[in-house]
């Protein structure tokens, strides 16, 4: 099976491991509790996870979900409610895992009718509608969900920024590793086949509904994990905060900006957009949305395949690939989509997984 040309091979793996070690050491070097940069990375890791979760469903399996905030919210509420009820504790791994698992279960339940009966735009609208319904349910949930005010958690337990940083880093790495292997497995190939041509995929014996639900629920699992961590971070969960459409649209924006259907696209998009948001917010808060919006418009205009196309083009040899010394970076040693031959033979539309 073909491999990702960018950051693959031994050099790529080594680079990624070094990066993880570097990121792990950061809170020791920087003053974690004081540093804004540590917070920035924390929020970036969450964005990366949510974006990669959406990328799996939409970018690889071709099922555009506009309802990821449902899973984010459910993750947050499962954590908050179980802690509130005394079933789990603070930063409890069991609570976090259950939050992800229940979000995934919800994705299976809702995926059966939505993915089974609806396609394309209608599926997107279906997920959007589902998430909005869920928000209203939680607003109307009276004592069970805390209604519109939500659930207050004992904020006295706040243990400082460091654990949040490591947990979010761990979740992001876990997500990326899982999805990296998943898209290289036969399931990943099945997802892409469904995205490319549903009927042909079915004719080849790919179980459509099962594959789509698999992608949908794995994306939901990781999104739920992020919701759970956010509940621990904010100590106050309310429907307007966690079921907000923002959590449905941000991953979409970040993934498309970075490069949809590519592995590194969502990562690059998430960090970049988080950076733009934070910088714009810091320096000129009154113009924040304007600047962020302008940035998004410019990127989509000039890099329709996402920022990731700067290093590997969707429609030809990657930009840097043309410059000799950079070639080895892109691991052409593999079965190599980025083999010279493919381009010479006029591959207009090579895609990278």
């Amino acid at each position: 099976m073909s491999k990702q040309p960018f950051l693959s091979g031994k050099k790529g793996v080594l680079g990624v491991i070094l990066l993880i070690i570097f990121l792990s050491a950061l809170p020791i070097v920087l003053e974690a509790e004081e540093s804004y940069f540590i917070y920035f990375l924390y929020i970036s890791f969450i964005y990366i996870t949510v974006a990669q979760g959406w990328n799996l469903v939409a970018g690889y399996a071709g099922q555009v979900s506009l309802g990821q905030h449902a899973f984010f919210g459910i993750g947050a509420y499962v954590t908050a409610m179980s802690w509130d009820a005394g079933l789990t504790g603070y930063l409890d791994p069991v609570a976090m895992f259950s939050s992800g698992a229940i979000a995934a279960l919800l994705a299976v339940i809702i995926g059966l009718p939505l993915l089974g009966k609806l396609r394309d735009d209608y599926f997107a609208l279906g997920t959007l509608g589902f998430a909005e319904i869920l928000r209203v349910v939680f607003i109307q949930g009276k004592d069970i969900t805390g209604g519109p005010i939500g659930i207050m958690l004992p904020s006295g337990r706040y243990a400082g920024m460091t654990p949040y940083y490591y947990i979010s880093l761990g979740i992001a790495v876990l997500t990326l590793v899982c999805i990296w292997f998943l898209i290289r497995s036969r399931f990943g190939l099945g997802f892409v086949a469904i995205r490319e041509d549903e009927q042909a995929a079915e004719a080849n014996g790919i179980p459509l509904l099962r594959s789509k639900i698999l992608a949908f629920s794995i994306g939901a699992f990781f999104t739920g994990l992020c919701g759970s961590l956010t509940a621990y971070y904010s100590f106050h969960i309310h429907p307007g905060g966690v079921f907000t459409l923002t959590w449905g649209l941000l991953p979409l924006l970040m993934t498309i900006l970075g490069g949809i259907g590519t592995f590194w696209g969502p990562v690059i998009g998430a960090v970049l957009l988080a950076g733009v948001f934070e910088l714009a917010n810091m320096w000129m808060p009154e113009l924040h949305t304007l600047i962020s919006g302008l940035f998004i418009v410019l990127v989509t205009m000039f890099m329709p395949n996402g920022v990731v196309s700067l290093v590997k083009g969707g429609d030809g040899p990657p930009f840097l690939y043309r410059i000799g010394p950079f070639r080895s970076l892109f691991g052409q040693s593999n079965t190599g989509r980025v083999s010279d031959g493919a381009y010479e033979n006029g591959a207009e539309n090579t895609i990278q997984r």
Partner: protein
Amino acid sequence: MEKKLLSVENVNVFYGDAQAIWDVSFHVNQGAIVALIGANGAGKSTALNMISGFNPPATGRILYEGKSLNNLPPEEIVNRGISHVPEGRRLFKRLTVLENLELGAFNSTDSRKRMKQSLEEVFRLFPKLEDRINQPAGTLSGGEQQILAIGRAMMSQPKLLMLDEPSLGLAPQIVELMFDIITQLREKGITILLVEQNVYQTLRISDYAYVLQTGHLKMEGRGEELLADPDFQKTFLGMVY
């Protein structure tokens, strides 16, 4: 008597409210090339889609190796050994040749285990594909794409291969090649159900043919019988006496 691999009995097929196939029966013997021919809209492709489970019949039975296929999902039908090369090839154009072939063996653990062997077999049949494994399928020529589509279908090691207009849109020379390939596949022991508009060539290579007209079975017979039939000649070969 020859063994029936597939038999379709009195099926009626609908697209929503519109009936596309009316009370049609036909069968395919083991090891034969059987053709479904007829004009556009006769229901040929519908018949193939019905067998592969995309659009199951409202009434009637489909029996394969003596067992009913009626309510099985498409992936299960592939597992049973029926492979469908859809009209217009339906390749995954942005995926490589190799990935397209791998997807052909997606259906079961069995096919995946035999993947290497199946690949070797496909490359033996179609050596050209091996030179292009890393090329996106969309960059192949029309003939090569059709060959790839057949190769992909062969990856599940089917007993019955259903080909929907394999000669569509190909240069005359390549059309010849396509019919050669079909004959070769039969020699390898694969049973073939062929849908074609290229009536003359099709009848030349097929053992038996059914003629469909607007969803009804009009005629049937061995290839040479049909070719010699004045009625048939008038309707389908445009011969006028």
